C-alpha cells in the first residue's frame, strides 16, 4: 500500500490554478524530497495529502484511505515550517496534549523528548525555547504514535550541524522500519545524501520525479571531470582538444587543473583516452548534484518565480 498517491491532481484557489495534473506517490520505507521555489505548489500538495483541503480535480489516496479521515490522520506525523506552540505551556504539557489528541500513549512523551534532546528542558515553558528547541519539539510531536507517513517541512531550520546529523540518522532509522517520509527543504546539498527520490515542482506542475540517477538521465546534464596534468598542461590540453572534436565537450582551466564537461554517454571513452595518453596525474568525476538538477529543471531566474507560498 502506498503512503500516498496523487492521481492527476489539480487545485485552484478562486480562479488561480496552483497545481496542474500532479501524479506522485510515496512508497513505505522511502524518503521523498519535495522541492520547488516558494509558490511552486509544495504547501498545497502537503495540505491535500494532510486532508486540509480537497483537490479541485483528481484523486488523493493516503495510506489506502481518504485524506483527512481520522483513521488515516492518526498515522500521519507532520512538522510544519516555522512550527509554533502554546508559549505558556511546557514542552512536556504540549506533547502530552498532542499525544492525547492522537491517541498515542503518554509514556511515549518523555522518551520522545529525550530522543530529540529536550530531556532537560521538558518542564520549561516553550516561550523560553530557542527556534531550534521549538523545531525539536515539533519533530517530537510529528513522531507521536509512530507514524506510517511523516511529512517534514524544512525540518533542519534552526538546528545546529550535530542536531541536523542526528535528525537524518533518525529519519533513516524510521525509513528502515517502513515509514514513508516526505522532506521539503531549500537546503538541497544537505538533504541530497538522505533522499531516495526527488520530486521537483515549478509553477504548480511536476517538472521531474525519480531517484537521482534517473533525474540525471532526464536532465541529460554533462558529467564534470577534473583532470590534473602529470606534466605540462599544454600536452593534456592537446589530448582533450582532439577528443573535443568528436564529443563537443567543454573545457576550462581552473588554477592549473582542467575541468571538462562531458556527456554521460561519452564519459568512459574520454577517460580511457586520457588515461592512455599518460598526461594525467589525477582524475575526479563529478556527477551533477541535486542542486544542479534542480536549477536545470527550475531554470535560472528563480527569484522571478518566487511568490508567496499558499
Amino acid at each position, binding site marked *: 500500500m502506498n503512503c500516498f498517491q496523487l492521481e492527476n491532481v489539480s487545485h485552484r484557489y478562486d480562479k488561480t490554478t496552483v497545481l496542474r495534473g500532479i501524479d506522485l506517490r510515496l512508497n513505505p520505507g522511502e524518503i521523498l524530497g519535495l522541492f520547488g521555489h516558494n509558490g511552486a505548489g509544495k504547501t498545497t500538495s502537503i495540505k491535500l495529502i494532510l486532508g486540509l483541503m480537497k483537490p479541485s480535480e483528481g484523486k488523493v489516496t493516503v495510506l489506502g484511505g481518504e485524506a483527512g479521515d*481520522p483513521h488515516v*490522520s492518526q498515522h500521519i506525523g507532520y512538522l510544519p515550517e516555522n*512550527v*509554533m506552540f502554546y508559549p505558556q505551556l511546557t514542552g512536556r504539557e504540549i506533547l502530552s496534549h498532542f499525544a492525547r*489528541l492522537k*491517541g498515542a500513549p503518554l509514556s511515549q512523551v518523555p522518551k520522545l523528548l529525550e530522543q530529540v534532546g529536550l530531556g532537560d528542558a521538558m518542564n520549561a515553558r516553550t516561550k523560553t525555547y530557542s527556534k531550534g528547541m521549538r523545531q525539536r519539539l515539533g519533530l517530537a510531536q510529528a513522531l507521536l504514535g509512530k507514524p506510517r507517513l511523516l511529512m517534514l517541512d524544512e525540518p533542519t531550520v534552526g538546528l545546529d550541524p550535530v542536531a541536523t546529523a542526528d535528525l537524518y540518522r533518525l529519519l533513516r532509522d524510521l525509513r528502515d522500519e517502513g515509514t514513508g517520509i516526505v522532506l521539503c527543504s531549500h537546503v538541497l546539498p544537505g538533504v541530497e545524501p538522505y533522499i531516495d527520490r526527488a520530486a521537483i515542482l515549478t509553477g504548480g506542475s511536476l517538472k521531474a520525479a525519480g531517484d537521482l540517477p534517473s533525474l540525471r538521465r532526464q536532465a541529460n546534464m554533462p558529467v564534470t571531470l577534473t583532470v590534473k596534468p602529470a606534466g605540462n598542461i599544454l600536452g593534456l590540453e592537446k589530448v582533450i582538444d582532439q577528443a573535443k572534436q568528436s564529443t563537443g565537450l567543454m573545457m576550462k582551466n581552473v588554477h592549473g587543473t582542467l575541468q571538462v564537461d562531458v556527456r554521460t554517454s561519452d564519459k568512459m571513452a574520454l577517460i580511457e583516452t586520457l588515461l592512455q595518453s599518460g598526461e594525467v596525474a589525477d582524475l575526479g568525476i563529478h556527477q551533477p548534484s541535486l542542486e544542479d538538477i534542480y536549477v536545470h529543471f527550475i531554470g535560472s531566474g528563480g527569484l522571478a518565480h518566487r511568490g508567496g507560498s499558499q
Partner: protein
Amino acid sequence: MNSIWTIARKELSDSFRNRWLVAISLVFATLALGIAWFGAAASGQVGYGSTPATIASLASLGIFLIPLIALLLAYDAIVGEEEGGTLLLLMTYPLSKSQLLLGKFLGHGLTLALATLIGFGVAGIAIAVLVDGVAVGALAIAMGRFIGSTILLGWGFIALAYLVSVRVSEKPIAAGMALAIWFFFVLIFDLVLLGALVASEGKLNPELLPWLLMLNPTDIYRLLNIVAFGDSTQLSGVLSLGSDLPIGTGGLWLGLGLWCAIPLTGALLLFRNRKI
C-alpha cells in the same frame, strides 16, 4: 468525545494557570456580597434587605459583567489558534473542526460555570449563614435559578464570541467585534426598542412587542430572575413589556437555551467552511 474532552481539558487548565477562574470567582463573590449587604446603601440602609431585591440587583449588574467576561474568555478561541500558528497543526490531527469548537465550548463553558458556581455559591452560603431569619429554602431556589441563568447567559455570549472568532483573521478585529456585540446587546438594544416604541406612536402590534425582548438574551435573563418572584413592579423601562409575555419561566429558560444553541450552531457551520 475523547478529542473534545482533550481540547476542553486544555482550556480548563489554561483558565487555572492564568488565574481566570480564581479572578472571576472572586469578582462574582465580592459583587454578590457587596450587593447583598450594601445594595440599599443609597437609601440609607446597610445590611441584607430581601432575597428578591438582592437577586434583581445582581441580575441588573450581571447583564453588564457576564457577557463581557464571556466575550473576553472566548473571542480568540479560533482566531487565536490561527494567529499563534497552532490551528494548522491541530487540524492535521484526528480532530474535526466541529470537535475543536465543541471542545473549546466545553472548556470555556465549564470555566464560566465553575466561576459562577463558586463565586455566587459562596455568596449564597455566606448570606444563609450570616443573615438571621433568612428563608434558606427560598434563598437556595432563587440563588440556584440565578446561577443557572447566569451560566446560560454566559454560554450564549461565549457562542456569540465564537461566531466572530471563526470569521475574522486577526485577534484585534475579533476583540473589537466582541466589544461591539456587548455594546449592542447590553447598551443599545433596549434604547433602540424604547426609541422604536415611542417613534411608532402606538402603531406597533402590542402583541408583538413583548416578543421583541426575546431577541436579547440579557433581557430574557433579567426577566427570568425578576418575573420568577411574581413581582413585576421590579420591571422597569422596556423590561416592563415582559409582564405581557404569554410564556412562563419555562419559555424564558428555553429562550436563553436557544441563545446558546443557535449561535453555537452558526459558529460550527461557519467554521466548517473556513479555509485552513
